[in-house]
């Protein structure tokens, strides 16, 4: 800090007796900052962190919060999850993982293709195209699930068209392959991939494509050698984000979820709420949260490396 007065600059100095006042003011500022943060911190500690710790302790039988939990340390829930004959829980976990993976990959592919189409063709109706492609972002999960249910249930348009046009009937909702979940999740989530990829394509330096074109590159070569390497991190991060949101979703599985094998979120609901099998409800929850956090960790890693790459 320098004091400027009457045309000459004085060297920085602290006026005698002001140092303790500055210290006091800094402390008061810090205290105010912490007080402003306190409601948020307290709220999340009590509403998220504490329940998270409690379900972990309950899954180990260390806290008999609900009836039917073992009195004392026990790995009963984990044993049943991993080693029950026929491995029904592991099977449900694998089903959930696979259905989510297929939905995330297809939604990302669809969003990517649509963004690429917009970049390459620049259609006259691009505004309408963008608005349409982003619309599902605004539709609530339960409503979107219900909307697709009206199309997919046995008397819905799609099965009726398949039946009348091709003469075959296949269940498309509450089916054993999770087709309803996949179809609905793709519609709900391709917008995420489209929005991310569209902004990525917008940010690409047009000179790169111009240079490649001048050197005689075809459209396919431009896609393969320029667009794809420069947008791969965006595609990966959208795939991870979509995977996470479908993996932890309840409404889609609630409406379209197969009766068997069950989506993991529905399995927790059935075990804990309908059957009162709290030990399994808590154990599946712990595993579910662990996997969800691991996926979000991967998502953050992809984002960080993308940021670093952009900074370079």
């Amino acid at each position: 800090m320098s004091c400027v007065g009457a045309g000459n600059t004085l060297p920085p100095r602290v006026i005698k007796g002001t140092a303790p006042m500055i210290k006091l003011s800094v402390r008061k500022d810090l205290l105010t900052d912490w007080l402003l943060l306190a409601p948020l911190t307290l709220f999340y500690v009590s509403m998220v962190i504490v329940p998270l710790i409690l379900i972990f302790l309950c899954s180990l039988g260390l806290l008999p919060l609900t009836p039917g939990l073992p009195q004392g340390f026990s790995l009963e829930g984990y044993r049943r999850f991993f080693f029950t004959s026929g491995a029904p829980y592991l099977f449900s976990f694998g089903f959930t993982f696979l259905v989510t993976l297929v939905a995330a990959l297809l939604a990302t592919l669809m969003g990517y293709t649509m963004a690429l189409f917009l970049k390459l063709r620049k259609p006259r109706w691009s505004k309408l195209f963008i608005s349409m492609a982003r619309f599902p972002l605004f539709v609530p999960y339960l409503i979107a699930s219900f909307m697709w249910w009206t199309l997919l249930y046995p008397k819905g348009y799609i099965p009726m068209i398949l039946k009348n046009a091709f003469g075959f009937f296949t269940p498309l909702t509450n089916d054993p392959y999770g087709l309803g979940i996949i179809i609905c999740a793709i519609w709900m989530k391709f917008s995420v991939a489209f929005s991310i990829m569209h902004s990525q394509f917008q940010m690409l330096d047009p000179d790169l494509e111009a240079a490649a074109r001048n050197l005689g590159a075809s459209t396919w070569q431009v896609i393969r050698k320029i667009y794809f390497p420069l947008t791969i991190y965006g595609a990966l991060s959208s795939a991870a984000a979509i995977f996470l949101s479908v993996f932890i979703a309840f409404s889609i599985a609630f409406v379209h979820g197969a009766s068997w094998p069950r989506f993991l979120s529905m399995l927790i609901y059935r075990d804990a709420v309908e059957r009162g099998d709290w030990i399994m409800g808590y154990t599946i929850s712990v595993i579910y949260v662990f996997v969800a956090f691991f996926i979000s960790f991967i998502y953050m890693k992809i984002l960080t490396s993308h940021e670093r790459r952009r900074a370079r």
Partner: protein
Amino acid sequence: MKSLRKQFVDLIVTLLVFIYVIAPVAMIIMYAFAEKWYAWHWWAPQKLGFKWFKDSMLLQEIPRALFYSYTIALVVTSVTLIIAFCSGYVLGTKRFRGRSLIDQIANLPFAFPAIVLGIALLPIYSRIGLLRNYWGVVLVHMVGAIPYTLRAVIGSFRSIPPELEEAARNLGANKLKTLYKIYLPLTWPGLVAGAIFAFTWSLNEFVLTLLLGFPTIFTLPVNISQYMGEYFLSPQRAAVLGLFLLIPTVALLLVAEKYLTPESMGGGLG
């Protein structure tokens, strides 16, 4: 100039996207307005009208569900905004130890399955008397609403030059006065966007209300689930309720998008 063939291909692709996106929405609109729709005439309803709207409003539970949905959303929005404004100021303008930890804790609900939170809170709520209680539902809706609002608000705070606060402080304003006089007027687009996020989040929250509020406190999404086969099947009634949720949600989120600056979006992306 594009060839006619290319323009035709562009039009076809745009039309396909339009049909793909609009088809499910068109279905619930049709269900909501279909007064008569016989199975042998599966491709279109035979009579359209407002029968299901009138019928739904005559049921005792639907006006109640509308009341609970909208009042809970309003309370959640108000409290969420206060918390997000106070903490958004610190997280968006200050650098201190522990900041990223708090930021990460606030982001936890993005990766936290709602069903897990629901069954974790169920016994706790039951013990402290918040189960099937209006305020218990408000609290649990805030868990999901705060992160979205906070992202938008932090983005707005980050877009304000810190020199403004310094100038105000040098002129003798204390922190609260600075917040009120400097930041509040400048962060309002982020606050509006955040409020809309919180409102629509609460309006559409389903599983936590089902677990912690139902059957005493039931909102529109819970009612919709009842008509989708949980109790009995009535797609027409579910479609009417779906429109009560869909139209305000889409309209509000479009408004939010208008108010969201690129900086707020940056905040949103973390």
